[in-house]
């Protein structure tokens, strides 16, 4: 028997690591992976609540989040490839001009 608090703390820790990744990394791909990690941390909390409440709604929300993440990755990676084509770099510090 694991108290649900443990799952929530784990979720908070994973979310913070994701947020930290967005803040300190400069590689656009790694920033993007950190966003995925944050989505995943939220999913973990939702499934934990769903398990405690004996309800399927949390699991279905997670299902939608996974679908949205897949859509987001498709568009985001297309954008990154496009930025790389014009800047020859995916360093976010280089993306400092409005005109591509």
């Amino acid at each position, binding site marked *: *028997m*694991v*108290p*649900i*608090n*443990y*799952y*929530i*703390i*784990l979720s*908070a*820790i*994973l*979310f*913070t*690591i*994701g947020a*930290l*990744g967005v*803040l*300190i*990394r*400069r*590689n656009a791909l*790694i920033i*993007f*992976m950190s966003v*995925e*990690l944050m989505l*995943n941390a939220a*999913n973990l909390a939702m*499934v*934990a609540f*769903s*398990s*405690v*409440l004996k309800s*399927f*709604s949390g699991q*279905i929300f*997670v*299902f*939608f989040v*996974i*679908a*949205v*993440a*897949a*859509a*987001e990755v*498709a*568009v985001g*990676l*297309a954008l*990154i*490839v*496009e930025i790389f084509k014009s800047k020859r*770099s*995916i*360093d976010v510090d280089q993306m400092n001009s409005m005109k591509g």
Partner: protein
Amino acid sequence: MTLELILFLVLALIAVATAMGMLISRNAVYSALFLVLNFVTVAVFYLLLGAPFIAMSQVTVYAGAIMVLFLFVIMLLGAESLPKAEVLPWQKPLAIFLAVLLTVEASYVLITRARPVGEILPPGDAVNTMDNLRQLGMTLFNEYLLPFEVTSILLLVAMVGAIVLIRKDRRVR
């Protein structure tokens, strides 16, 4: 200390360690592989929480499709590692301090104010039956039918958007 608690702690350690590995790896390919391991660990958590369908979706969609796409783009761009350059030297320590603060704050608020009660019991045999999946499907297609359809449109828009972004510009500049 029960067996489930030990299992939880070991898996939590792996999850946090792989997330940190993703964060500090210099090479983007290593980061992606650490993240795959993290996603698989979270899938095991879903199995422990009695959500086998979500666990399998996690492995196929996240660890399978999304991370393969990531690895493909990393290798396509040849962007494994960036040259070291600190534009804002004070930003990294500040970010780490704020992140630690955020963890403490979030844990404190979630535990003391939200007061989640309840314990995660190990899932019984009922989870592995077809009936569990049938109930999930009934909930999905009865209560959440409209969000489901909106998701299909969202996926279509994402697909079209990705193609529009990537295709060669035919206009004469």
